[in-house]
């Protein structure tokens, strides 16, 4: 485990690089000229009010939507590949194996009519695993790691509470051992105590596995707890960027100052 305040760059090459990523919806700006790099094991937070382009940017980075301009480079087998210049089947394969997406709403990331074990095991079957016993035991292992009890393995996500569904989604995303995880408001819609446990879990998992992560949130407490670096967005532009504690404790941009001062003192 490393100290999140000092970015130790053991691996000098970034795993993900965005260069002037721009996405327009017709006349309207989704996000404009976003550039950054992400190193293995690092957690980047994107904060901003709703409509500031956070999710748009995330969808571009994750390969779901094609950006209007700019380039997204992903390091795959010691080579930087441009995400939207490779054939679609290759991109879809990377999406399933090299990175994962945790959706805000678990319904978007889970098969609701397939059991918890099937949901977690699907990624292994995608990869070509064809041994039922092994698939089931690694599904069990992952359910335990996200604190879902073993006797719920054959229940469907419908029968789970919101917090459990979100944990199940996280297990499904992490089971193929991705190198990069995108999370869109992973704690949205959960009550405070469930949020806290989920955040604890995420922190442990991300640190233990050394996964790089991009987390979109409007909750500054989540950002402070989970992220190493922070990007503040407004109206599609990145207005401030830096180490999380620096940005939150000493905000420079007027909008960031407004954002940090708007946090309720607990």
């Amino acid at each position, binding site marked *: 485990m490393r100290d999140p305040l000092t970015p130790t760059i053991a691996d000098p090459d970034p795993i993900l690089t965005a260069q002037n990523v721009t996405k327009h919806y017709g006349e309207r700006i989704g996000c404009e000229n976003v550039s950054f790099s992400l190193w293995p094991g690092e957690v980047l937070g994107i904060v901003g009010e709703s409509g500031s382009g956070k999710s748009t940017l995330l969808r571009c980075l994750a390969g779901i939507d094609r950006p209007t301009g700019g380039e997204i480079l992903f390091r795959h087998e010691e080579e930087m590949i441009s995400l939207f210049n490779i054939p*679609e089947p290759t991109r*879809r394969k990377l999406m*399933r194996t090299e990175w994962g997406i945790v959706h805000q709403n678990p319904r978007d990331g889970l098969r609701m009519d397939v*059991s918890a074990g*099937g949901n977690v*095991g699907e990624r292994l079957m995608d*990869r070509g695993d064809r*041994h*039922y016993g092994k698939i089931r035991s690694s599904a069990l292992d992952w359910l335990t790691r996200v604190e879902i009890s073993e006797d719920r393995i*054959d229940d469907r996500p419908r029968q789970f509470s919101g917090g459990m569904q979100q944990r199940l989604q996280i297990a499904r995303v992490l089971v193929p051992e991705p190198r990069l995880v995108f999370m869109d408001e992973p704690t949205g819609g959960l009550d405070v105590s469930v949020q806290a446990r989920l955040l604890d879990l995420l922190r442990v998992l991300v640190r233990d596995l050394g996964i790089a992560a991009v987390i979109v949130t409007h909750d500054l407490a989540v950002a402070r707890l989970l992220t190493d670096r922070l990007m503040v967005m407004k109206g599609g532009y990145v207005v401030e960027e830096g180490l999380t504690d620096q940005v939150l404790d000493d905000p420079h941009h007027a909008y960031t100052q407004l954002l940090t001062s708007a946090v309720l003192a607990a």
Partner: protein
Amino acid sequence: MNAAQHDPDYNFGYLDEQTKRMIRRALLKAVAIPGYQVPFGSREMPLARGWGTGGIQITAALIGPEDRLKVIDQGADDTTNAVSIRRFFARVSGVATTEETSEASIIQTRHRIPEKPLDAGQILVYQVPQPEPLRRLEPSEVETRKMHAWAEYGAMHVRLYEDIARFGHVATTYSYPVMVNDRYVMSPTPIPKFDNPKMDDMPALQLFGAGREKRIYAIPPYTKVKSLDFEDHPFTIQSWTEPCALCAATDSYLDEVITDDRGGRMFVCSDSSYCEDRRAKGHVGKELATAEALAYVDSVEGASHDA
């Protein structure tokens, strides 16, 4: 059993010649890419979609005056659907029909493959209600086409996983998905999984038509067809504890038949032609007499009334 003359009010085989050409082109493409679903312009037929219009259109496009047609429904030659379709083709084409599997050049089927092995030169035409094996997992046609194009078939095993998790074994008994020629996952239509092994390396040509869904696909002769399974849960077919009650066959697919309202039942071959053939050769099942008494089968003494 040459039943009828060609009714001159209809074009030979009911469909017009341009439609037949369109279907033949789709068939050629389907044979060239085993297991791939080829879209085609399915026509209105004189019966409702979902009642076998896909198979009927393929048969109509293939059939020639020299052909001999057999039609089976659930294995039997004498069920309503089979009788109607056979009579339809007798009227619109005047071709000879038969119930004898080995005599037929075209066999149109719903839900079964005949027990008697087919020969090279024969054509088996299946009626398909739902051609897309991935449909229950992925509702979007755009998405399923991509999954087929790039052989992304991991989700297919989720269905089998769910069965094993819930029942301890793969409980899918019909429409059991197969991998054709190591490339395309294909739905073998609602045939029982008992028939899946017969599709592998079959000398006859197998054609599949889905009229409502407007798809045609095919398995050329001698093509590898493998049923999907797990390493530790290999594919198995159904088995029965007793032989056929009429012909004592132990190697055929059996239907359960209720014989009275006091719980009486027997298991008989679903392939009626196979069963008759065996009885004619002198095989006697232990409940043949009961079945004759119920007029379920014609008695051997030569009563010729229709069942």
